[in-house]
């Protein structure tokens, strides 16, 4: 059986990639995808520990996270569509009307 440490390492790598994606990329869709990556990194940890300890609660949490992620994507995509309609762009750096 594969040690849980590998899963954790993979999860950490995925999370880092996601976080860097959010920070670096300017395309809103890509940022969303990076957020999904971070969520799934967390899901991986949940599942790995659930299997390690033989309990279901981790897997159940994953279902919740996936549901919330789906809902978030729905809302987020709707927002991006609306922003695109008004700005003809989804570059997050151009969405700066609220700057101080």
């Amino acid at each position: 059986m594969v040690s849980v440490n590998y899963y954790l390492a993979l999860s950490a790598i995925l999370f880092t990639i996601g976080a860097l994606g959010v920070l670096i990329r300017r395309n809103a869709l890509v940022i969303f995808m990076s957020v999904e990556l971070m969520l799934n990194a967390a899901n991986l940890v949940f599942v790995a520990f659930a299997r390690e300890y033989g309990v279901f609660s981790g897997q159940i949490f994953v279902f919740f996270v996936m549901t919330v992620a789906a809902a978030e994507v729905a809302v987020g995509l709707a927002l991006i569509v609306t922003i695109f309609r008004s700005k003809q762009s989804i570059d997050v750096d151009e969405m700066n009307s609220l700057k101080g």
Partner: protein
Amino acid sequence: METTSGLFFFLAPWIVFAPLVGLLINLAIGQRLGEKGIGAVAASASGFAFVTALLQLYSLSVHPEGALVKVAEWIHIGNLALDWTFRVDTLSVTMMLVVSGVGTLIHIYAIGYMHEDVRFKHDVPRYRRFFVFLNLFIAAMMILISGDSYMMLFVGWEGVGLCSFLLIGFWYDMDTLGRPSWANSNAAKKAFITNRVGDFGFLIAGFLMFWYMGSFQFDAVFAAAPEVAHAEPWVITAITIFMLVGVAGKSAQIPLYIWLPDAMAGPTPVSALIHAATMVTAGVYLVTRSWPIYGLTHDGQYIVSTIGAVTALFAATIAVGQYDIKKVLAYSTISQLGFMVAAVGMGAFVAGMFHLITHAFFKALLFLSAGSVILGMERGHHHLPHGDHHEVFDPGDMRNMGGMRKTMPVTFWVYMIGTLALAGIFPFAGFWSKDEILLDAAKVFPHVYIMLAIAAFFTAFYMGRQIWMVFFGEARHAAAEHAEESPQVMTIPLMVLAALSILGGALNLPGVHTLTHWLEHSVHLAEHEGEVAAWLQVSWGGLNPIVALISTVAALLAIYLSWLLYGRNPLKAGQPDPLKKPLGPIFTGMENKWFIDEAYWFVFVDRYVDLANFLAQKVDWDFWHEWFHNSVIARGFVGLTRFLADPVDLGVVDRVSYWLSDLVKASSESLRKLQNGFVRSYALSVLLGVVAILGYLLFK
């Protein structure tokens, strides 16, 4: 209570309620009743009170102890229990009969008198108001004489004072000659204010009574009085003296008599009813009612009696010098009230009450006849050619009259009867009552007797003067020549009163003493103890022939003297009074009321006005308005607001808030740079924050 069954004591409250009902009817629907209806309602209300009084008389003749009839609880505080209780005893019923009897006659007379009065003065709607006031007076007077406590008496006392004020000022917008002026309302105010001085004395007497005897109720006060007299004799004297102040106000004694002559500004029936026959005798009644207190203090008796005698003499001298027919009678009333006060003061309560009754008869008669004369003059004046109407004409001035026995025969005869009764000529009513007073005075206080005897001489003189001036000689004014007799509604009450003035003496004839035995049930009569001169001990059934002879001779002499001066050579128009020359300044004094009004004006009114002016100008305006308001309040307030505005508001409050706003502004200037609009930098902040929190949690 069994003993009073079948008697009419329980009806006693109607003595007050009957006139009240009458006045309410007149108030409510008088306008629709018309003149005849108003007069009929008012007169029958008063007549009903008289019938009630007669029923009380009958009940008392069966059960002379009388009764107390409680109508309502009034004041119950602590130990003080005052009720509205009617005290029906021989004294109060005597007063009730006089008030309601004479009152009813005057009501009837007033129906005729006011009918013409309101027409001569061009104000017919006032007719109703007159009768409302008159009934109110009867009700208040009945409360006064039927009350069972000094406080209930005081309620009536104030009530009659109010009615007196209202009726003196009945023609409030004119003077006695009908010219627009405040003279009549000033006369009303004078009466009211003078009476307030007297009421002040009454109240102090009442407070002393309550403080030392613990009650206002007559029986309780009288029961406690001997003990107080023993422990603190000065209290009793003080009560009698303060009560005398009240008596002097209401019964027009020195020094408070000055209002009564001015009270003649009211219509003549008012002068007859209130200012001669009934209200002014309230003081005499009060002293009689308080006999147990007065009986305990020789000093009090001495002072009261002397005041009465001095008043009697003093007012009689003024009456000699008056020209107004009503003014003569007014001073005569003061003088006769002096007789009564002197009598009750020295303990001759029956003599005082007797004189009160007979005086009510003949003075009411004289006033009403004088009213008849005045209206006769008015009618005569009315018939003159038009040119004369604009001159100022005084229908009451005796110098305008003369020879009126031919034009007004009925009035002349009843006036003669009244005069003889007042002068004390045998066998008219005044003879008996005045003689009784003189006899008692001679026994108790000789100096009072001398003054009263001289006053009686003056009385006969000024009445003789009046008769000669008014009814004899030649008319001194065309109005007197054309005067007309009054209608029957006025002359019939005059005849009734004339009959009473003739027969009134029968109430207490020597030997029979009906009134004495009657009043014995209410007033305990003490025989005078002490030395009495031999000539005074002669008694023909209570009548002393020497005293009677002296006063009769004096009266006849005075009338003869008046005939010499005024009858033999009647006054011509414009001629000065024949007494003016021989008496000189003395007559000027009499003519001008010894300048007492002027003196009072100088001593009290002017000083009071000065004080009021000083208070208004110096204290109120200069001090309070000018100085205090402007300097202290206004300036102080401006100073305070300036302090609050400048150093406090601008200096402290504003500076703190500016500093705060500057701080917020500066900090927000630097903080706004964080809000750069790049969503990725926010995300980096979140990441760094999370890392920081996790780092803290891991490595703490």
